[in-house]
Structures are given as structure tokens and as C-alpha cells.
């Protein structure tokens, strides 16, 4: 029987340095993205269609145009939201710029019956699931914590604590198994997370659960290279998709700026999940083109040159190039999409600005299923307190000194006078 010794060359094989460069990178991607056989690509940055033996994709011109429309519109939504934040209409915004293909490709791979569990940056997936972008603005404006019904859209609420949702996704997938809802036409789950999240215990626990219970879940990791200011090298010594193997399920890396590759690979992984083959991890290799959020300043920690290089791999432009090259769309189509994007921007802008603050007492709603003595008593007391200012105002006596000392406006609590318009704390920082 062989005895393992310190002399075994296999045991001492040196782990390659972080993201060791591959000899030949996939078309248009940096060397660390891996060789063509490692990175799945169906549409090059130049808009050239390439085939992959494992992921044949039959896609009509109309479907292609639909994907292009999605990409343009979610980018416009993003641009508009950043502008609204700059104008003080949103407290914060987490931009998806650069990640449109990863989100639209995977989002459009979902069937209506499938369930998605997002982070707080999946605006493109939300779009695919029919969530009105205004609902996303509500959250970032501070009007709600997430105003859509997850069951209606099969799109769970945004989760801000990094990685927590991967366990919810896995548990949901275990529910699908118990319901016997797998198989042809059955259901599957997709869990979104980022490169930073792969360091979280919850994500690793989700991998273990999904693996040992063979849960029908697809782990879709958008590796955008940055967790706020921390580069991928701080999260992993090996390419992220290779982690899956250690957990006992397949992992693959896809060009995250290639909407066709993301669509094809996610579709295949969902199919495998439905067919009882268990989880898959997809690493969508992409780049966060913007700041982490509107409070972030990436010039402090990354090179302008990287950004310029990634601009050449733009997820939207390559689809446009392919549509033109293949004669699938003409100038009038692009004009039409641009006009639609302008209309979307205008609608979001106007509706966001017109969005009222919630009624103060609504803060006391939906904490418990039924009446609750403490919450109800505090709500009633606060209602009486607010009413006391109305009475004071009507009587012309001004607010009580304890609440609205000079130079307070009569009948209005001091805090309401001091509070500016538009959203919650500007310093709020999420990862």
C-alpha cells in the first residue's frame, strides 16, 4: 500500500499563483480569463459568432433583437438611476454597468416557473422577471426595502447582506424536490452572487447543501473582478469556477459580457438541475465598469487602463455589431430602441421624482402576521404624538417646546423641518 510522504510530487505540486496567465486567451479577453477551452464564448467582442461544441445555440434574428433591446433598456435604466442619485432623488444606487449581458443572458434563460434569488445589483434580471424598474428605485430612494411580490415575479427580494440569499435559493430548491416539481417542464432555481460573496460562509454552506441534497439550483456568480475595492486576488487563489469541483458539482466559466454564451450555459445548467443532475456553478467573467455604488470612488484603487481595456469588450456593442453584420437589424430598429430607451428614462425620472415619502405610520406595518401589543402601542403613541402637532398648529399655539423649540415652524416637529428631501442616508454603504 502506498504511503503518503512529504516526497510525493503530486502532494507538493505548487499551486499556481493567483490567476496564472493562460497561454492563449479567449478572443478579446485578458489572459487571466483563460484559454478558449476554459472560457465559453459564443459571440466575440468584435461581434463575431463562434460555436462551442457543448453549447450549440439556435437563436432567431427576432430573439437576438429582443436581447439587444433588453441590454439597451437596462443600461438606460442604470444611467437614469445614477443621474437620479446625483440629483438627490436616490440615496444610493448600485450600478450594473458592464454586467448587462451576464444578467440578461441568464435572466432570459429562466422559464416562467423558475425562481431567482438576486443580490442588490440584479436590475437586469429584475427586468427579465417583469419587475417594474420603479420598484428598484423605490428601494434605493428609501421608500421601501423592496416593494415587489417575490411569488408574483418568481424573483425574490434584493438581499443586501452578502451571500445570504444563496442559502434561501438552496432551501427553495429543496422545496421543489419535495414537491416533486422537477423533470421536464419542472422548476429550477438560480442564485446570484458575486466574486466577493464566494468568501462568505453562507455561500460555501449553500454549495454543500445543494451538493449533498442534489438540489436543483444554479449558482450564477458574476465575477466582476472587484468587491468594492478588493480585487479577486483577495478572494481566491484559483479561478472561481474551479471551486465547484471541490464541492462535487460542475463549474464552468463563461464570457460574462457575451449574452449568448450566458444564455446558452445557464439554459443548460437549469435543464440539468430540472433533470435531477443537481447544482451547477457558472462563473460569468465580467467587469464592473462603474463604481461599486454611487458612494464609491474606484479611482482610488484601480487603474484607468483596465477600464479602457474592458470597454473594448462591451456587452451591448458586440450584439449590435453582430446584428448589423448578420443583417438582422437595420438602422430603423436601432433608432426605435434608442427612442424606447429615452421614453423609459423619462418615465423613470418623472415617476421617481413624483414618488411620495411613505406615511409615517406605515413604518409600523407588516412586522408580524397579526396584532402585536408592543408595536401597536408604539404606533398608537407615535400617532398621538404626531397628532399633537396638528392640534397645536390648528390652535395657533405652536409645537410644544420639547419637540419644536425655536426657531421651529409652529405645528411642525423640528426633525421634519431639518430633514431634506430624497432618500435615506447618503453614507449608506453596501458591499
Amino acid at each position: 500500500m502506498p504511503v503518503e510522504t512529504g516526497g510525493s510530487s503530486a502532494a507538493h505540486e505548487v499551486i499556481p499563483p493567483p490567476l496564472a496567465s493562460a497561454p492563449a486567451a479567449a478572443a478579446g479577453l485578458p489572459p487571466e480569463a483563460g484559454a478558449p477551452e476554459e472560457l465559453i464564448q459564443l459571440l466575440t467582442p468584435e461581434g463575431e459568432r463562434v460555436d462551442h461544441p457543448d453549447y450549440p445555440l439556435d437563436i432567431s434574428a427576432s430573439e437576438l433583437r429582443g436581447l439587444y433591446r433588453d441590454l439597451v433598456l437596462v443600461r438606460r435604466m442604470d444611467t437614469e438611476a445614477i443621474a437620479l442619485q446625483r440629483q438627490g432623488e436616490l440615496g444610493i444606487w448600485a450600478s450594473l454597468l458592464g454586467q448587462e449581458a451576464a444578467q440578461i443572458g441568464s435572466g432570459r434563460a429562466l422559464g416562467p416557473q423558475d425562481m431567482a434569488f438576486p443580490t442588490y445589483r440584479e436590475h437586469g434580471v429584475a427586468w427579465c422577471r417583469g419587475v417594474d424598474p420603479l420598484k428598484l428605485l423605490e428601494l434605493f430612494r428609501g421608500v421601501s426595502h423592496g416593494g415587489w411580490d417575490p411569488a408574483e415575479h418568481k424573483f425574490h427580494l434584493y438581499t443586501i447582506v452578502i451571500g445570504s440569499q444563496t442559502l434561501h435559493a438552496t432551501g427553495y430548491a429543496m422545496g421543489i424536490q419535495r414537491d416533486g416539481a422537477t423533470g421536464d417542464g419542472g422548476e429550477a432555481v438560480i442564485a446570484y452572487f458575486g466574486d466577493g460573496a464566494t468568501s462568505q460562509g453562507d455561500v460555501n454552506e449553500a454549495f454543500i447543501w445543494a451538493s449533498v441534497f442534489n438540489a436543483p439550483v444554479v449558482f450564477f456568480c458574476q465575477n466582476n473582478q472587484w468587491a468594492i475595492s478588493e480585487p479577486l486576488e483577495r478572494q481566491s487563489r484559483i479561478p472561481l469556477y474551479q471551486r465547484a469541483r471541490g464541492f462535487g458539482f460542475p463549474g464552468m466559466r463563461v464570457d460574462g459580457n457575451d449574452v449568448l454564451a450566458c444564455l446558452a450555459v445557464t439554459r443548460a445548467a437549469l435543464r440539468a438541475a430540472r433533470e435531477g443532475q443537481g447544482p451547477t456553478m457558472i462563473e460569468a467573467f465580467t467587469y464592473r465598469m462603474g463604481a461599486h455604488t454611487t458612494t464609491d470612488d474606484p479611482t482610488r484603487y484601480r487603474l484607468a487602463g483596465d477600464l479602457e481595456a474592458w470597454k473594448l469588450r462591451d456587452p451591448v456593442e458586440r450584439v449590435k455589431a453582430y446584428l448589423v453584420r448578420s443583417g438582422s437589424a437595420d438602422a430603423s430598429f436601432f433608432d426605435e430602441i434608442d427612442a424606447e430607451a429615452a421614453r423609459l428614462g423619462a418615465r423613470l425620472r418623472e415617476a421617481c421624482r413624483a414618488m411620495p415619502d411613505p406615511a409615517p405610520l406605515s413604518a409600523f406595518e407588516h412586522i408580524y402576521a397579526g396584532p402585536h401589543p408592543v408595536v401597536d402601542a408604539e404606533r398608537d403613541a407615535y400617532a398621538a404624538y404626531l397628532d399633537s402637532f396638528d392640534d397645536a398648529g390648528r390652535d395657533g399655539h405652536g409645537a410644544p417646546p420639547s419637540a419644536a423649540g425655536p426657531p421651529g415652524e409652529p405645528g411642525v416637529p423640528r426633525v421634519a423641518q431639518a430633514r431634506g428631501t430624497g432618500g435615506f442616508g447618503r453614507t449608506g454603504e453596501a458591499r
Partner: protein
Amino acid sequence: MTTLTLARAMNEGLRRALEDDPKVLIMGEDVGKLGGVFRITDGLQKDFGESRVVDTPLAESGIVGTAIGLALRGYRPVCEIQFDGFVYPAFNQIVSQLAKMRYRSRGSVALPVVIRIPFGGGIGAVEHHSESPEVLFAHTAGLRVVACSSGPDAFTMIQQAIRTDDPVIFFEPKRRYWDKADVDTTASAADALPLDAARTVAEGTDVTLLAYGPMVKVALAAAAAARQDGRSIEVIDLRSLSPLDMNRISGSVRRTGRCVVTHEAPVSSGLGAEIAARVTEECFYSLEAPVLRVGGFSIPYPPSRLEEHYLPDLDRVLDAIDRTFGY
């Protein structure tokens, strides 16, 4: 009526819940073949199958996080956390996800998840096996927190908790698991005292003594001893720690004029502090003495050879009762 240990009464309650609703699941470490380290789930996997009584990987955050996902799918998971001190890895999932999902969703999502936690000391255990972390959860909006103290309550309260549409943190008095009592296992949980109600377990006129979980037995013994000194102690088993049944508590204190709260958890920022504040607000003109607290010291739970000094016992409770007469 059947004479059962508290542990067995828990088991019967869980069995009933599994029978009554096919959506009820049990998840945790060693809950299957072993029946849990305290045998609370003994025989349940054999009778209800591996998909309803699930031996999970050893990761508490994973247990609660996947339970949330199952609840989103319409299931009613009952998670077992093996010991009090092992709940902290799941703290984020409980506090930031489980407790807040209904609020986050503006009422469109309910998470009927029960988290069972054997708590408290007195069993000579090693570190992390004797803690009383209930106030961490009582401080979190969106959770209901309860503690049973007897077999009959264990049997009905666990069923009520499982039927609740809010998440419930269910504390079980581990040093009382082996205490026997007559339990009516035909009793209907729906007809039992509501889950958020306290129960007066001994009537009295001089002092209101509040306790829950393992301390109810100590409180009853203290009341019996005080009676020999001519003092009449009213003992209330809180049962619900969040929300508190302040109607019953304040109603009693207004009659007795004195209040002592006892729990194993440290008194600093403990449940007794909350009760003292509320009793003072609600019963100020009836109070003959400040509300006194008898609990664990504000130290980490000590090595078990010292726990008899740490845990409030009969004498320390009686001492506090004496002191309330010193004002």
C-alpha cells in the same frame, strides 16, 4: 393523561405537528437516526421519512438559511439548534433574514419557521452548552420568542409555535428535559392557552415573582419556602418572552406592590431590565419597592464546577424577596 418527561412531551408535540400538516419539516444536526442529542426527535425520521426529518450538514447558518428557502416554498420548517451556544453562526440568518423578510416584503412573504434551542445551564456541561441567549432574539423585531417550562406546555406550545405565521424562537429548558409530568396528549393545541400569554402558576398577594423556562421550578420552590415565612408569593410563568404579556404581569404587580424577576441570563440588559422598566411605567403608584432582578452574573458562563454559584437558586430568589420588604 400520560406521565411523560418534558423531552417526551416535546417529541409527542412534534409528532402531532408532523401528522397534522404535511408541510411541517424537521431539520437539524443528528435529528434523524439518533433522534437528536436529547432524543427530542426520537423515532420521527423512522415514521415520517428522511425528506421530512432531515439530518443536515453541520452548519447552523445553513440550517436556518435553507429553512427560510423552504418556508418561501410553502413549508413550515422546525430547526433544531443543538445547543444554545451554537446558534450564533446562524445569527445573521435569524436576525437579518428570518426576522425581517415580512417587513422587507411589505407583508407579501411569511416565514413560518420555528427554531428550537435547548437553553440554560445546570447540567455540568462544557463551554457553549449552558447559555441563555434569549434576549438577543427578544430584542429583534419580527421574531416571537417563547420558553416552555413544563411537559404539558412543551406539548402544546411547540404545536402552536409551528402553526404561527411568524418566526418563533422556541427555548427549551434543557435541565428540565427529564422532569416528569402528566401530559394529556389528546389535548388540542388550539384550545390551549395562547402562545403569547403568561400563566399564573401560583397565586399570592405579597410579591409577584416572574420566571420562565428552567427558573419556573426554582420560583415555585421559593414561593413554597416563603409561605413558611408567612409570605404569599404569586408566581407567573412568562412563557412568551417577546412579546411580554404585560397585562398579566402588571395586573399582578398592581395587586402585590412588589416584583422580582429571575432568569439564568445575565441581568445586565436582560429581560428583567425590560420588565422592570415596563412595570415601573405601568405600576408606578402601586409599587412598594423597586423591581429586583435575580439572574446570572455579567460574566461569561463559568466552568460547570462553578455553575451553582452562577445560577440563581432558591436562596438567592428568597434573598431578593426579603430585600423587597426592606424598602
